[in-house]
């Protein structure tokens, strides 16, 4: 099996990002033309066949999502693209948005065609300001060329797209929070139900997908769902963009077929660990993802195989840590992130994150006791099972999995030892 393929990233770097001319010359917009001649249900059928699962993290089957959206009869409907990309270690949407936004725009236009939607929004994190400008230009040019806006390709079909900026809030990647943010409000998640498919943006039916998800659509329509699916394995169709970061030689975004192993990802594609160090830990899916040691690396990149190990693929971020890192220090860093990013609305997340951070700090200080494990566990469980939204529910995944695989490092800190020599353990001396 090929370790790298280029289905959805094939134009990246080969076209000027905002040039419709380049994109069309390379083969772009063939899918939209084809889709114009297809019925909505036929398009949905191809998406279902492709086995495409949402690439934003929750891995919901895209074909089914589209089918549900289609079956809702209320109008108008909105198409929204999630380009918030806030999960630390993830930068693959940056690649798609910055290098070939027209493919995403084409994917959204096909979605609009299916749902007969007239308006769509691309929500892009505020930190990607320059990229927002690129996407805006691409939209403008697509309108000029008749691929977007009024009377697309000379038909009655019209679809308008607008870029909306975030302003620094990871939680806005959660779909109801994102919709609040587009409406000009603070991005605190809404209560569900209603789900956004019924009542999303302006309380109207809304189809929301990740940048990568929409970017897969043109290939699927162009080449058929089965073709796309054939690149993966029987459980997971197609390819995935992974973002490699941390202590690994080749840090970049790679398009890989489902089914390769994490070991291949880290050592062959990623080129292994620099400076002759050894691998300590991999975190998959960003800061909300699971952490595991070398022994787990033979797991396949595949929703099912990962799930059997209690791991989810998330955004496809792969963070590699070598032995110069301390697990306690790492978890502290993760918890600082969630303390900063919690929206504050619900008790477990607002209060829980900071208590966990305080407890982890005790380990880093050397002042923790055995009883602190139990306290952390209670809060972890309450957040995981009882927080209002996905942020709080997954904020402690890193801690929970580190306690599963690396508990002895925590225990060493109680004894006043940090094997990586990262933690100051000041509190211990002071005691």
């Amino acid at each position, binding site marked *: 099996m090929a370790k790298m393929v280029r289905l959805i990233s094939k134009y990246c770097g080969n076209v000027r990002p905002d040039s419709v001319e380049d994109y069309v010359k390379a083969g772009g917009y063939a899918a939209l033309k084809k889709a114009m001649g297809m019925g909505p249900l036929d398009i949905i059928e191809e998406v279902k066949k492709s086995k495409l699962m949402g690439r934003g993290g929750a891995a919901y089957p895209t074909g089914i999502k589209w089918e549900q959206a289609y079956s809702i009869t209320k109008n108008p409907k909105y198409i929204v693209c999630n380009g918030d990309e806030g999960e630390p270690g993830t930068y693959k949407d940056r690649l798609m948005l910055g290098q070939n936004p027209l493919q995403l725009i084409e994917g959204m236009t096909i979605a609009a065609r299916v749902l007969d939607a007239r308006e769509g929004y691309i929500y892009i994190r505020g930190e990607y300001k320059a990229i927002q400008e690129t996407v805006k230009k691409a939209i403008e040019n697509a309108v000029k060329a008749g691929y977007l806006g009024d009377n697309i390709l000379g038909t009655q079909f019209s679809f308008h797209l607008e870029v909306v900026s975030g302003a620094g809030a990871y939680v806005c990647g959660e779909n109801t929070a994102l919709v609040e943010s587009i409406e000009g409000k603070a991005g605190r998640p809404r209560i569900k139900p209603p789900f956004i498919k019924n009542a999303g943006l302006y309380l109207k039916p809304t189809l929301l997908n990740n940048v990568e998800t929409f970017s897969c659509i043109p290939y699927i329509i162009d080449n058929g769902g089965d073709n796309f699916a054939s690149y993966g394995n029987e459980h997971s169709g197609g390819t995935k963009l992974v973002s490699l970061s941390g*202590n690994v030689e080749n840090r970049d975004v790679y398009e890989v077929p489902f089914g390769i192993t994490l070991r291949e990802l880290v050592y062959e594609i990623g080129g292994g660990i620099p400076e002759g160090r050894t691998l300590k830990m991999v975190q998959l899916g960003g800061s909300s993802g699971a952490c595991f040691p070398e022994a787990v690396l033979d797991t396949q990149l595949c929703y099912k195989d990962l799930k059997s190990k209690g791991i989810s693929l998330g955004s496809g971020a792969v963070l590699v840590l070598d032995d110069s890192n301390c697990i306690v220090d790492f978890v502290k860093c993760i918890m600082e992130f969630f303390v900063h990013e919690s929206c504050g609305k619900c008790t477990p997340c607002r209060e829980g994150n900071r208590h966990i951070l305080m407890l982890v700090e005790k380990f880093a200080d050397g002042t923790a006791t055995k009883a602190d494990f139990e306290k952390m566990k209670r809060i972890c469980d309450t957040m995981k099972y009882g927080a209002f939204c996905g942020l709080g529910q997954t904020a402690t995944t890193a801690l929970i999995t580190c306690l599963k695989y690396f508990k002895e490092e925590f225990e060493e800190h109680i004894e006043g030892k940090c094997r990586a020599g990262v933690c100051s353990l000041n509190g211990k001396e002071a005691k």
Partner: protein
Amino acid sequence: MKGTVVSEVLTKYDNSKDRLVQILLDLQEESGQNYIPREWLEEVSQKLDTPLTKVYDVATFYAMYNLDPKGRYVIEVCKSAPCRSRKAETLAQSLEKLLSIKMGETTADGLFTLQHTSCFGACDISPAIKIGEKVYGNLNEDKLAEIIRAYREGQK
């Protein structure tokens, strides 16, 4: 007739409440000191006919907004895990030394503010910092000194 800064920005967005997040970003840029003055928020509230509390909520919710004046250049040091694994905390220390201020502070000449930020998607070149829209990566102390010097000189 030339309107106020606020009314000009609002006009750009058709005086739409829905664009509040963007409006505040634009206003912050207009301020020249990377912040949104209180009077501007009050004006936005009046002109959009939205309670000031709701404008205040948005302004305090998102991390990119500041309600107090900052330096001309805000240097944001990423403190998320991928950057930390590449020793980002040494960047913070170097910057503190180079600028003789602590994280969160602004230099006396009003040129630089140092602050932490969450991951901004430059993890392929971590450890990374952001100055305004510009991102710098694969940094070490020497490269930082070079960057700071360039900004200072750009001032003269």
